[in-house]
Structure formats: structure tokens, C-alpha cells
């Protein structure tokens, strides 16, 4: 009568299942992507009037404006991704199942990378149109993806720490922003060089820094993430 003991999926299988869960939940609730995009657009408008983004200085300031808007918007997504699970107790359901928490971490990182990409699909063309910039460069796409991975890698593990702490809304940016300094520096530089249509060899060192950052933090965080959800 009882079927033989089922065998739970391995690390990659768990990652796939949990990643589609993240996407399905977000697709239903639209609790994160929509507020994020609206926030980023509002931030762009605020920057326009703060920095007077016209004429000669535009190419110098625009990359920074774009990345500050992305990083501030990402704080909304990152904070929600764990707070929601902790509040409802759905995280406990996952942790009581036979998964490796590392797979859960990577699924959340992948979902956050995708969410940031969706945000960028909205605000990058908008930045190009509003400020009349040449933003459609292949090197920029690469910069965006690698920057997103860096933000999501550190942001996801810190969000899981902040989710159980007091004053989590303040704590997450306080911990995250200094750790993101290398991402901010290299993503802004690479974006600036891409806008100026410089050769790829000039952009490469910055993508190298981003790659090293992504690799270091994704690996370290996937290994120690289980500690942050342990109780």
C-alpha cells in the first residue's frame, strides 16, 4: 500500500524548484517588482532636479545616477524577500523539508537578479530617453547582469540576517551599502566607459573586479547561509 520511500531532489533540483517558486509567488503578488520600478522612476526624476542633468556633465553623472537608483530600489526587493517568508512562517516549512539551505540561498539570489533585470528593462531605456543618452551597448548589458549578481549575492544573505533583527529596515542598508562599494565603483566606471563608447579592453578590468566580487561573495554566502536561517 505505502509506496517506497521517495528520494528528494539534489542540490540543483532543489534550486530549480525553489527558483520557480520564487518567480510564481512574485508573479502572483507583484509585491516587489512594481513598487521597485515606480520607486526607481521617482528617484530618477529627483536626481534630474538635484543635479541638473543636462549638457556637458551628463555623461559623467548619469552612470552614478542610474546605479544609485538601482541600488536603492534593490533595498525594497531584498528586504521583502525574507521578511515575507519569516512573517508567514513559510520559511520554516522549507527548512523542515529535506533541502540544503544553500540551494534556497542561490534560488533567492537568482530571483533577485532577475527582479533587478526587470527593473533595469524599465529604467535603462527611460534614462536613455529622458536624458538623451546612448545606453544601448552590449558592454552595458554585461555590466548590469554582473552588478545585479553582486547586489543580490550580498543583499540576500544580509536580508536573511536583518529579517529577524529589530530595526531591520535601517539595519539592511547600513550593512549592505559599505559592502557594495566595490560594486558601485566598478559598475559606475564600466557604465561610464560604455556610454562614452570606449573600446571593450578599457571596460574589461572593471568587469574583472565585478566578476571577482560576484564569485567571492556568491561562493562564501552559499556556504555559510545556513547559519543565518538556523535557530
Amino acid at each position, binding site marked *: 500500500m505505502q509506496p517506497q520511500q521517495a528520494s528528494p531532489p539534489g542540490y540543483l533540483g532543489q534550486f530549480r524548484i525553489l527558483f520557480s517558486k520564487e518567480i510564481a509567488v512574485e508573479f502572483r503578488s507583484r509585491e516587489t517588482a512594481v513598487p521597485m520600478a515606480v520607486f526607481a522612476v521617482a528617484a530618477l526624476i529627483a536626481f534630474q532636479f538635484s543635479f541638473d542633468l543636462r549638457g556637458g556633465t551628463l555623461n559623467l553623472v548619469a552612470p552614478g545616477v542610474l546605479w544609485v537608483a538601482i541600488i536603492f530600489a534593490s533595498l525594497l526587493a531584498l528586504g521583502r524577500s525574507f521578511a515575507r517568508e519569516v512573517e508567514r512562517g513559510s520559511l520554516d516549512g522549507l527548512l523542515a523539508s529535506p533541502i540544503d539551505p544553500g540551494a534556497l540561498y542561490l534560488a533567492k539570489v537568482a530571483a533577485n537578479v532577475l527582479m533587478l533585470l526587470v527593473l533595469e528593462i524599465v529604467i535603462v531605456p527611460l534614462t536613455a530617453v529622458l536624458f538623451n543618452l546612448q545606453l544601448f551597448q552590449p558592454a552595458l548589458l554585461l555590466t548590469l547582469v554582473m552588478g545585479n549578481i553582486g547586489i543580490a549575492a550580498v543583499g540576500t544573505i544580509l536580508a536573511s*540576517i536583518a529579517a529577524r533583527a*529589530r530595526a531591520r529596515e535601517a539595519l539592511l542598508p547600513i550593512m549592505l551599502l559599505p559592502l557594495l562599494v566595490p560594486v558601485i565603483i566598478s559598475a559606475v566606471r564600466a557604465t561610464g566607459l560604455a556610454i562614452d563608447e570606449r573600446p571593450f579592453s578599457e571596460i574589461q578590468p572593471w568587469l574583472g573586479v565585478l566578476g571577482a566580487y560576484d564569485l567571492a561573495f556568491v561562493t562564501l554566502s552559499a556556504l555559510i547561509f545556513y547559519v543565518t536561517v538556523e535557530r
Partner: protein
Amino acid sequence: MSLSDRRFSTIDIVGVAAFAVMLIALYLAIVESPSERVQGIHQKIFYVHVPSALVAYVSIGVVAVGSGMYLWKRTHKWDRLAIASAELGVILTTLTLVTGSLWGRPVWGAWWNWSDARLVTTLVMWLVYVAYLMLRSLGERGPATSRAAAVLGLLGFVNVPITYFSVYLWTFLHPLPTLQSSTDRPESAILVPFLVGMAAFTLLYVYLMAMRMRLEESQHELDDLRAAREML
């Protein structure tokens, strides 16, 4: 141990030594060391700035060791090591930033120089470990907060070289006007006061670490006693 038990312990000896060596270091730096040709008397802050910076970096390394070992062994002594070293690290990086800034004013003509990779990295490090202390103070005392802090301690440590390299690359590819200081290769007249300064800061660090860890241990015992009393 009771308070009346006042024999000299190793910690006390280290404390006295730190005090004595610090006095010698100050004497050597202020009186004995030569005045640098270009920078004159301003260069003398080097004897405080560089030792405090180096010991600050060591203390951040000790936070990482304590954090990693705590996550592995889960024994409270490693957590004590991390928390004590993080607090001293913040104090030492603060000292480094202030002395660096004071030194920069006459030499660079500005309090701050964004193109100095070491200074910017130190500032980022300072922010990370201030966040670390905030995480600890906002959390309830206990293993959950210790684990969270240990994770941040490790992430912050890995961040240091990447930050340094990216700021370095930034100034290298995008140079700003700087005046190179000529103290990179200290001669023997400079070397001796510098090494004594290093010894002074190292002893001070060891002494304060020992005191802070003892305080943390007492706090831990007190928490246990309070919890035990509540159970009755």
C-alpha cells in the same frame, strides 16, 4: 576569581608594558626622530598613523578568525574574541582616519583624499564594522545574534581586499592630483621609532583585548545567573 585577589597576572604585566613602551615610542617619535625634509614636523604623525592602521587591519583579521571559528566550533570564547576585536578595530580605524586626515591637511592640502586607496578602504572598513557593532547592539544577547555577527564579520573581511583593489584601480585609471609622501622607505632613524610604535600599539591591542574578553566573559556569566534566578 574575587576582586580582593590582587596578584599580578600576565594581563597586568602586558598592560604595564604597553604603557611603558607607548611612552618610549612617543619620546622617540617626538624628540629623537629626524624632521623629514619635505614635510617637516607634519611627518611625525606617521609614527601614530601607520602603527594604528596596521593593528586595525590585524584586528579585522582577528574578527574574521573569531567569526569563522565560532561558526565551526560554536564555543563562546571565539565569539568573545570577535566582539572584542571588532570594538578595538573600530577604535583603531577611527584613530587611523583622524590621524590620516590630520596628516593629509598639510601634505595634500585637504583633509580628505578620495584617490588614496588605503584611506578609502579604511573608511569603508570602518563603516562595515560600525554596522557590525550596531547589529550586535540591536540584537538580543545570544547565539542568534552571535551567528549573524559572525556572518557579517566574514563578509566584511572578504570585502577588504576587493575594496582596496577597486579603489586602487579607480585612481590608477582615473588619476587625481596627489603629492606622494616620501616616507614609503623609512631609513633606520625612522625605522626604530616606527618599530617601537608598532610594538606599543600591538601591546596595547593585546592588553585591551584581554580586558574586553574578560568583561564579556563576566557579562556572559551574569546573564546565566540572571536566567537561573528567573527559573526559580
